[in-house]
Structure formats: C-alpha cells, structure tokens
C-alpha cells in the first residue's frame, strides 16, 4: 500500500495538533521518520508549572527501539519512563513505581508481583474472566434492547472488563470500581481537552487523581494486614524485599501503575480491535470461519492497536546508536507504534492480517526488563472478549466513527457507537 509521506521537517511530535490528526496521517508521518536516516530531535511540549527540559530524541525503527530497550544499563528508566518532562518530586511519589525504576530494585519488586501474573495463576482467573465477560455482555444487550439498539462499546464493554478484573485481583470493593476508572482516565488523558478542560489544571488534576487512588489502596492495605486474603494487595503488604517491606507509598504507587496500565491498555486493544474488524470485514469473516486463528489474531490486534505508543529512556552515559552520537542525560522516546509498522521487519505492515506470522511486535514493549508484566493477562482478556463477542453478539455492528483520544502516549478510543441489529 502506498502512502504520500510528509516532509520530515514539517512533522512536530510535540505539537498537540499532531496527535489530533487521523490515524493514517500519523502513520504516514512515522513512515517518513523511519525512512529518514537521522534520529529526529524535538523540543519538549510545555506543561504549566513544569520547567521545560532540553528536548528528546525519537526512535521510530524496530531495530533502534530494540537496541535501547534491551540495553537497560545504557538506556535507563529511573529518570522517568512515562513522561517526557522530568517529574517534580510530588508526582514521582505517585507515579514512580516499577515502570520508572531500574534494577536491582526493579528486579526484586517485579519478582514479588510477577507471581500474580504467571500463566498458572492466570489459569485460575480464566473462569472469572469468562463469567465477568458474560455478565458485561448481558448487561450491554439488555441496555441496547431497552433502547434503540445502540450503545457505546467503550463504556459498556471495553472499559468494565479489564477494570473489574484488575480490581478483583487487587481486592478492590465493587463500590470503588467507578472511582478507579474515573481517576485512571484523568491520569492517562494526556491533556485531552475533553477530560482536561483547563490545561493550567493538568498537574493539579493528575495529582488529585493519584491521591484518590492512593487513598483507596492505603485503606485496603491496612485491612489486609489485619485480615489477609489471597489477593494481590495481601501479597504486597506481606512481602519483604531484602528484609524490608514495601512502604504504604510504594504499595500505592504500584496500585496506581496497575490501575492505569491494567485498564487503559486492554480497553483500547478491545475497542481498536472491534474497529479494525469493522474496517476489515474480510478479516473478521476469516477469523470467524477459523477459530484456530485466535492466537495470531489477538497478537495482530495488539500490534495494530499499539495501545501504549511509547516509553521513555534516558542515556546513562555517552553512547552511539544508529551511527549517531548521544550524550549522557539525552532523552529518548521509544515509539513501539512505529516499530510495529516497520517495513523492514513486517511484510505489508499497513495490512491488518489476523493470520500474521511471524509477528515480532512491540505492543507489550520491546525486549528487556520492563516487558509488560500483564502481557499474559491482557492476551487472555482480549481473547475472551472476542470469543464472547462473536458468540453472544454476532449481530453487533459499528454504526459510527470512533471518537479518538488526543494523546501521544495512549492510542485511545473514547467512544465507539455500536448497535445490536437483532439479526444474525
């Protein structure tokens, strides 16, 4: 498929308007950057109350993202992984969990939590995921049938599924689920004007959202110390790292990471997947006719969606990458979404192919110690979501354009109007 590529100098990834472009325009810009030999450099976007940093480099090629990700001693996460700007101390307290931490501490804490995400532990969650999905789909159908047949897929299906699963794993009470969803939306809005009506308020709102989530988990942590259960919060409060237990603050930060990382990503994979199958009905027909394609189809949805577009790394010393010299302290954004469309790695990367194999995508991050902790869980959730959608909502059709989140970080869909036709 041929695209008209823009001139590299006309592309500004720090301009919020860039992220309001249509997906094919954003993709064309990255295709141009991948072909351009020099690793591009951008001035940092201005965020009220934060000092503007020195700027950042952007890695768009699969090989460059791989090289940075798999050499954590040269490209560290501890200076920040989820924000271009260096965060002030107050924010780092809430958002400084595993994802923005380096080994050896990262490895120790990761090992404690990773046992909750292993394939074997997830086996016992499967029945849970299936029952929950059944309930969610039944509620959405009842809502559609009580009205004109339409509903918002994001609100009724893509959001509640991962939210309820991550909350159940943590042991969060049902009545707090809505608050968790609302606050994690604020944290990951990336300044989208609908969620952040006043740009001056971004930092304040994000801090308040962090504090609200921290409040929920700190109360829960106290309860679990008294009355342990088999949930993840209990594991966190009862664990020790080299004779030290995690502080209330560390547990809260980890919970915030899980809420945010465990909700938005899978939600957007499901929404983007439904939209992709709508745009490529022949791929939907192919998958429906051959359920053995589920494994490759789920991977392709993750590649196609790339729900988290980038993570940041910082050079720990002067170094060379792609024949270019960099200095200690230089910031890099590793664009997984661009690596996932790299023409030198994927055959016809602009084609959505549910049977794609091999598919060495970076949708869960690239190789290295920070590879997505929840990858197995996310695969399970997306698999069950589509199996159940095919089975219980064969009459589902998309009836409008997706309403997209304007964010460089999360490839989000805020709303996707769908309808149950009653015909199968």
């Amino acid at each position: 498929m041929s695209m008209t590529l823009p001139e590299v100098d006309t592309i500004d990834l720090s301009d919020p308007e860039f992220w309001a472009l249509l997906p094919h325009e954003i993709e064309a810009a990255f295709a141009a950057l991948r072909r351009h030999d020099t690793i591009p450099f951008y001035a940092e976007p201005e965020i009220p109350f934060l000092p503007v940093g020195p700027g950042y480099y952007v890695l768009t090629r699969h090989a460059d993202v791989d090289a940075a990700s798999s050499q954590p001693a040269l490209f560290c996460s501890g200076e920040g992984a989820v924000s271009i700007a260096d965060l002030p101390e107050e924010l780092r307290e809430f958002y400084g969990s595993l994802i923005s931490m380096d080994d050896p501490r990262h490895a120790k804490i990761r090992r404690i939590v990773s046992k909750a995400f292993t394939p074997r532990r997830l086996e016992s969650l499967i029945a849970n995921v299936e029952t929950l999905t059944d309930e969610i789909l039944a509620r959405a159908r009842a809502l559609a049938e009580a009205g004109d047949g339409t509903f918002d897929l994001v609100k009724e299906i893509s959001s509640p599924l991962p939210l309820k699963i991550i909350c159940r794993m943590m042991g969060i009470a049902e009545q707090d689920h809505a608050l968790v969803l609302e606050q994690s939306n604020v944290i990951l809005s990336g300044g989208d004007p609908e969620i952040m009506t006043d740009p001056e308020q971004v930092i304040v709102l994000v801090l308040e959202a962090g504090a609200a989530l921290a409040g929920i988990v700190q109360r829960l942590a106290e309860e679990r110390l008294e009355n342990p259960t088999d949930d993840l919060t209990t594991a966190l409060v009862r664990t020790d790292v080299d004779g030290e237990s995690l502080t209330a603050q560390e547990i809260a930060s980890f919970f915030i990471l899980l809420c945010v990382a465990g909700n938005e990503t899978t939600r957007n994979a499901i929404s983007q997947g439904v939209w992709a199958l709508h745009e490529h009905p022949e791929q939907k027909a192919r998958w429906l006719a051959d359920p053995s394609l589920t494994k490759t189809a789920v991977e392709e949805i993750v590649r196609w969606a790339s729900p988290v577009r980038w993570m940041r790394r910082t050079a720990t010393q002067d170094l060379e990458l792609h024949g270019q010299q960099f200095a200690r302290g230089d910031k890099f954004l590793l664009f997984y979404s661009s690596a996932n469309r790299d023409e030198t790695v994927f055959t016809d990367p602009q084609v959505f192919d549910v049977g794609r194999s091999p598919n060495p995508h970076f949708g869960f991050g690239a190789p290295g110690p920070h590879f997505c902790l929840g990858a197995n869980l996310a695969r399970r959730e997306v698999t069950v979501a589509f199996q159940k959608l095919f089975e219980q909502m064969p009459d589902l059709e998309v009836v409008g354009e997706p309403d997209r989140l304007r964010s460089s970080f999360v490839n989000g869909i805020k709303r996707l109007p769908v309808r149950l036709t009653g015909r199968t």
Partner: protein
Amino acid sequence: MTDGPAAQVTVDRDLCVSSGMCESLAPAVFEIDDDGELVVLQDVVQDALLADAQAAARSCPTRALTVT
C-alpha cells in the same frame, strides 16, 4: 521418539524477571513457582520439548534463557 539431539536449558538469574512467557510456551519445561522464581523442570530437553524450549528462549523478553 526420543532419539533426536538433546540440549541443555539454562537460565541467567540476573536477567530473568519471571514474565512467564516460557511457561506459556513450554509448560513441561518451565514453571514460575509460588515465590515467583522460575523453576526449570527439565534441564535436558529433546524432540518436541526441545522445539518448545527453543521457542520459549526466542520469546523470552529479557533473553534470560539459553537452549544449547
């Protein structure tokens, strides 16, 4: 059935983060135990298990596994 070449499975403990990718691809060879540590259930693999273990080594996100 078990006449093919055999290979040794090793884990670099400094690299392993217990992501469990290996267990999902080769559950007969790898298991994350209740403490979150990777246990190698069979350190010499052959035939079908060899293929599974090699797939697991290729997919390891931290490249902590070798099968040689």
